[in-house]
């Protein structure tokens, strides 16, 4: 209920080489500013208390000023401000000075209301998503089809306006694998806040798998917590992979879950691990085989067969909630569940990486075709 009560982030991810350089300057300036501000506040507070009107303090002094002090508090701040300027110009120089090795791997970004189209050096296209290899510097060149947008990645401390009629560019050297925010930072109309996406940074091996179409989104399941089995999910873009996203989205793991050690709530519904094609007893005494058809009925009309020992509490997922294709995907996911694979209660699905690059594998965000793809 109070999801936002979880520990809030206080420091943005630092996921590129430039982010480190940026943060040194940021913290230097923060320190100077904090000390300077604290000095002013300390003087202010001292004066406010020391010189408050009181029986002992009734006569103000007549002080007109001091040229010496004026010079001191002109020159000292100026020197610090100039140090900000010089260091800031150097950091800026790093940000816009695209190294030759980055220029060799050039991504193109086109902004339009309200989506990002990204094309990698090998011609692979993604929408609202850019997938990068950790440790490999890349250049990103951008332009816009309509209004001014801004391609901003906070974890890289990078941002540049994407201007119609111009090419603008930035470069990144991602350092830490992970998924980060991509924002449009320049107001561009109604869907400005929808013009967001993901930056996927993959380690070298994962990146190669992703390029080959054999990438599996890692996730933390009960088995992985116990230190056994895989932390890799189904093949990205496969029916089971989509089924897993649906399983979380439809909140199936509100009842069908693995009890986590720190959660006293027991499961409200039977485990689905190793379920497929096994014999199961029903509450009316029948024994059935958990075939695809059985699973479909169990989702569409759960009261038709209730497992013995469990209450008939599952809601019916009619076609408005889950289409036939969705059920095929869910069934594929249930088929794939090995012991330890069932998620914890209300555990969130890890953010999946894009989907397999080949459209034949059923990528839900199919790469744009040569004509510019879907709008």
């Amino acid at each position: 209920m109070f999801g936002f009560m979880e520990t809030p982030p206080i420091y943005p991810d630092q996921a590129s080489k430039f982010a480190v350089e940026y943060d040194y300057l940021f913290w230097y300036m923060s320190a100077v500013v904090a000390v300077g501000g604290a000095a002013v506040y300390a003087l202010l507070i001292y004066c406010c208390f020391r010189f408050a009107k009181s029986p002992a303090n009734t006569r103000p002094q007549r002080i007109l000023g001091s040229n010496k002090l004026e010079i001191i508090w002109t020159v000292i701040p100026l020197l610090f401000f100039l140090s900000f300027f010089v260091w800031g110009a150097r950091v800026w120089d790093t940000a816009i000075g695209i190294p030759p090795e980055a220029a060799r791997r050039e991504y193109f970004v086109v902004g339009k209301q309200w989506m990002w189209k990204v094309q990698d050096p090998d011609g692979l296209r993604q929408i609202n998503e850019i997938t990068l290899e950790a440790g490999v510097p890349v250049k990103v060149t951008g332009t816009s089809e309509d209004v001014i947008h801004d391609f901003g990645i906070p974890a890289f401390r990078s941002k540049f306006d994407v201007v119609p009629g111009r090419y603008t560019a930035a470069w990144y050297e991602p350092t830490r694998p992970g998924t980060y925010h991509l924002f449009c930072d320049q107001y561009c109309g109604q869907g400005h806040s929808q013009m967001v996406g993901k930056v996927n940074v993959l380690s070298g091996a994962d990146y190669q798998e992703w390029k080959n179409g054999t990438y599996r989104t890692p996730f933390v399941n009960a088995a992985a917590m116990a230190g056994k089995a895989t932390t890799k999910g189904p093949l990205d873009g496969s029916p089971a992979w989509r089924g897993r996203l649906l399983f979380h989205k439809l909140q199936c793991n509100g009842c069908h879950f693995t009890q986590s050690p720190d959660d006293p709530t027991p499961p409200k519904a039977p485990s689905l691990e190793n379920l497929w094609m096994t014999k199961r007893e029903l509450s009316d005494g029948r024994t059935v085989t958990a075939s695809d058809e059985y699973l479909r009925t169990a989702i569409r009309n759960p009261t038709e067969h209730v497992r013995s020992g469990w209450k008939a509490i599952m809601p019916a997922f009619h076609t408005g909630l889950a289409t036939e294709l969705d059920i095929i995907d869910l069934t594929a996911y249930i088929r794939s569940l090995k012991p330890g694979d069932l998620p914890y209660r209300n555990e969130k699905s890890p953010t999946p990486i894009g989907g397999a690059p080949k459209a034949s594998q059923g990528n839900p965000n199919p790469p744009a075709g040569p004509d510019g793809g879907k709008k």
Partner: protein
Amino acid sequence: MVSTTTMRPDVPVEKLDYTPQTVPPPELTPEQARGRTHYLNADNTLLGWLLTVDHKRIGMMYLLGVTLFFVAGAIAVGLVRTNLITPTGAILELDQYNKAFTAHGTIMLFLFLIPVVPGVLGNFFVPMMIGAKDMAFPKLNLMSFYVWAFGALFFIYQLMVGGLDTGWTLYPPYSTKYSHTNVLYAGLGIFITGFSSILTGLNIIATVHKMRCPGMTWGRLPLFVWAMYATSVIQLLGTPVLAVTVVMAAVEKLFGIGIFDPTIGGDPVLFQHMFWFYSHPAVYIMILPGMGVINEVLTCFARKNIFGYAAVAWSSVGIAVVGFLVWGHHMFLAGQGYYLSMVFAFLTMLVAVPSAIKVFNWTATLYGGVITYQAPMIHALGFIVLFTVGGLTGLFLGTMGTDIHLHDTYFVIAHFHYTMVGGMMFAWQAGLHFWWPKMTGRMYSDFWSRLAAIVMIVGFALTFLPQFAVGYLGMPRRYPNYPPEFQIYNVMSTAAAYIQGIGFIMPAFYLTASLFFGKSAGNNPYRATGLEWQTHSPPDAHNFPATPRVYFGPYEYGVPDGLALVDKLDAQHAHANGTHTAKEGVTSGS
């Protein structure tokens, strides 16, 4: 050099603990006060108000106008902040949100922050502070009010027929080609209110040059007048560029001639250059008058001469001049050239210095004072505390390297609210509370006014502190929907915004109540030195019973026995400040 004895006031005055700039008139007896004719009740008819050329009445009409628009802008931001309670938008559709934040920005900037202090306090007190009967061009002054009101009508109309969704910055090609909202009406409103700003600036410059009373040298001008003078110069030179820019955008939108349209060879960044050429100096139009108010309030409640009169006065002029040359720091990321950005970043660091000088001088002014904490003083101290945060965080945005990550995030929102609201809004409150007794002749409730000041300051600080954090985390501005991990900061900000809102509602009650139930303020309830206090409250229709003659600088508080020490003080003052010229400071009339 004329001997100092000729400067001596020839009217004996009672022992004072301060030295007014001129000889104060005697306090009125209650009978005299009751039957007195003053600017409020002389010709107190509707036409008498609507066609008045009295700068004080025009100031009061501005007060009514800007208060209404402040309420409108506050309602808009109430919607914005409430919507941000949840990551998916609590109450508004995307379009509605975009219109709400645009309404907040345009109304607060063009119809509140720019006119509020020049329109109300500048109109009312610049002539009084320099001992004049009115502005240099009283009819022009009335005209600039009506031009402003006429321009404001277009904003109201634009809101009524569906609003504007471009943000106050109106960047093309979004505003000229893609937005289907009322860009033209809003542009017309900006264009017309701009002329009001130009005319007011012109009037104040002429007034300060030509209308100063005998003895009111430039070195004896209250610093509020210096600040208003610097502001007027910016208004006069900057606003025409905004007008040109808006006309270009309108022509572009109507006829598609392609000045800003890259598809037919135009350049959208050209608009940004022209827009910020006005709009960066415009932030100084908004803050300089506020800084001027702070000088008056601090000196009075600390009973101190301002520390470094010349430094404070010239820092206003410095801000006005250098402030014209820093606009490019809004466009570091818009594809601006490296060396051009370097020049703008360098000048930005220079323009930060005069603001720092002012803060140091204000702090030093308190040293050795006898400080009392009435509402104006609490607001003024709030100004210093909050403006310091606003100024220091501005350094992060003016530095090229750090601007990359912080540009267009909530860090920017927090920064400029700390300067515009933490600065200007609190200066306005300080000024309004300081001069309210002079404007109305009534005192407001001491308790409620202090409480409101504290609620406002605390509420304000807590509203915008979380926004620095969420901005550094990367939350972009103008986002009705945002990633859920930013929610805690937005909830904190909204909660504090409600507290702040309560603070801002309170003066409406106790100030209005003071008009009916407040006790009589007397001529000079704060024992202040300025000329505007050396007359009755409310002032006569022509301000002073007789043309005042100024003998002293504006902030002679720390002097026991007041005028009794004329000779000694005058010698000291002449020595210390060098403000006495061979002409004995008489610059006009006699």
